[in-house]
């Protein structure tokens, strides 16, 4: 029986764009970037949920909402049955401890003036994880956990390579013994051979510590490898969510199909029956009415232009937000 630890319901988030002088003179109304347009997602205990999509589709915004860096205007996020944006929950620091985020850029996410030891002990003392006297031994333990040498504690971030820095970021997140890790493009900035090292470490730690991971990335091969389930986001909406292997081998939504076929195969002779998407992601300032994908979709009909498709379960597949999912998957 899978246990839902995080229940995200219909969250919506808009960012106002500052009005320029021209807008004031022409009396144009203020515009908004619609980053998330009703995202619902459940995170099950102990799983890795991959989140994929093109840049600007709202993957990172979703991750940031989950760790309360942004507060959605509508919708709710429940963690362990409790609303994380409720008034009394906001003062609750234990949520911050139990859900930890790791960021994309290994060069800007660590304070350059703090040694690794200071970075890790800060996390430990802020959340009162250990009595003062035990902190150094816990730091040593954490370094060991992420396979960094013990002398790393006395070094500054600039002395480390990108891969090592991401290990420090992982150690910092794990210092406070979280239950959920949010990995926002954790390995995207790393070279392939180093990427594999960090991914292996993450998978190993997940089994060892029974962590739940939300893995946000744009590298599809990597997401397929680490995830149990995958959600595909397009323009602030989830268009498909389901079991990772099913979704990758047999995508149902036309966008997922196109996205997956765009990833170049390592086999020179496997040119694939590549489905080439026309055009680019529409600006989130100007989300098309109806299905947000209809302007690039090959299967578009009048219905798609008028009505937003909701996520619905498809037999044998996951959940898909497409009016014509049945016919499309029959042809595929």
């Amino acid at each position, binding site marked *: 029986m899978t246990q839902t630890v995080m229940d995200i319901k219909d969250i919506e988030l808009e960012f106002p764009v500052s009005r320029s002088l021209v807008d004031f003179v022409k009396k144009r109304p203020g515009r908004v970037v619609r980053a998330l347009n009703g995202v619902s997602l459940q995170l099950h205990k102990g799983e890795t949920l991959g989140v994929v999509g*093109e840049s600007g589709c709202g993957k990172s915004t979703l991750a940031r909402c989950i760790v309360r860096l942004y507060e959605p205007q509508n919708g709710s996020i429940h963690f362990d049955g409790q609303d994380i944006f409720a008034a009394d929950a906001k003062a609750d620091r234990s949520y911050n401890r139990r859900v930890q985020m790791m960021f994309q850029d290994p060069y800007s996410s660590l304070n350059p003036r703090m040694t690794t030891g200071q970075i890790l002990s800060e996390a430990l003392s802020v959340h009162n994880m250990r009595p003062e006297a035990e902190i150094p031994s816990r730091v040593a333990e954490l370094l060991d956990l992420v396979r960094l040498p013990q002398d790393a504690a006395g070094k500054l971030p600039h002395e480390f390579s990108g891969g090592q820095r991401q290990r420090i970021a992982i150690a910092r997140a794990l210092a406070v013994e979280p239950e959920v890790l949010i990995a926002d493009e954790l390995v995207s900035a790393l070279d392939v051979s180093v990427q594999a*090292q960090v991914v292996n470490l993450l998978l190993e730690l997940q089994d060892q510590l029974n962590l739940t991971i939300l893995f946000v990335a744009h590298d599809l*091969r*990597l997401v397929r490898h680490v995830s149990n389930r995958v959600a595909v986001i397009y323009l602030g909406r989830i268009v498909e969510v389901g079991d990772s292997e099913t979704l990758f081998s047999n995508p149902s939504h036309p966008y997922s199909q196109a996205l997956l076929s765009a990833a*170049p195969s*390592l086999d*020179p002779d496997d040119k694939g029956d590549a489905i*080439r*998407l026309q055009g*680019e992601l529409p600006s989130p300032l100007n989300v098309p009415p109806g299905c947000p994908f209809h302007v690039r979709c090959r299967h578009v009909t009048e219905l798609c232009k008028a009505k937003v498709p909701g996520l619905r379960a498809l037999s044998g597949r996951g959940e898909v937000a497409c009016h014509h999912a049945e016919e499309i998957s029959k042809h595929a």
Partner: protein
Amino acid sequence: MSDTQPILEVENLCTTFTRGGVALPAVRDVSFNVGKGEVLGLVGESGSGKSVTLRSILGLSRRYGDVTGSVKWMGQDIAQMPERKLRHIRGRDIAMIFQEPMTSLNPLLTVGMQLTETLKAHTDLNRAARRDRAIEMLDHVGIPAAASRLEEYPHQFSGGMRQRVMIAIALAANPKLLLADEPTTALDVTIQAQILDLILSLADELSMGVILVTHDLGVVAQTCNKAAVMYAGRIVEQGDVRQVLRAPRHPYTVGLMRSVPQNVPPRSQLYTVPGTPPSLEALPQGCAFAPRCQSRTDSCMATRPPLESIAQGRSVACFNPVTDAQGAAA
């Protein structure tokens, strides 16, 4: 198509930068040929010298470092050619597109001006003809409503569109060789696929040679005829793309191929190359890859293996190359 006389012959290219009195050998003894209509992929991790190699071909790194070796363009050595003469080749015969479409266009000039500037320098078209050609080029690279977009500035274009503009500028003067430095790294996969298709179809149409620098093995597999793998400034393996990717012989290439999660059980441990690439200041005495290599011997640590031909058009720099059987297992 590749059995004709090569258009570009690079031989023993070395580029050395100096920082604080320390010599940094960024590129060492790099040699390769590019034929008409041939697409060569230069692969490697960051810092392996792929971009510097490209820049050295065009004489862009001689101001910052010491470049030796020969770069023959149609039989003529351009490595030591004076800047003024080189300018006739650069942009006309050999064009380059850079990694960041966001920063390589001038934000203060309209796209039309930047396109016609190249044409003015390298062709004798008149003003009206240049404008027509600019529209034709934008059209060619798939920018809708090209005529009206000529007057727009780079910030009005999206990332993928800017990269198309860069390609249009590079191809405006009908170059015979295109140097593409990670042209799609900053773009999404769906846009990447469009841009690579575009470069390939143009290369085919204009029988243009292409050197594509990338760190994505998938991109190499899908676009290139030949591949050269670089590590710490040297080519460690090169040959036909199928042979290099299917049956890699250098342990580093094998490691690269196997660290990509493809055709492995989900959530299994990935193969990893232990350690990190060496810094240029402290390159090992022998093979630069030896400290990370599992099949190293004492001789690997002491002397550097030369890049030796093992078959027609295929060479590898390793004393103990991976055998076919091992490579196939990978």
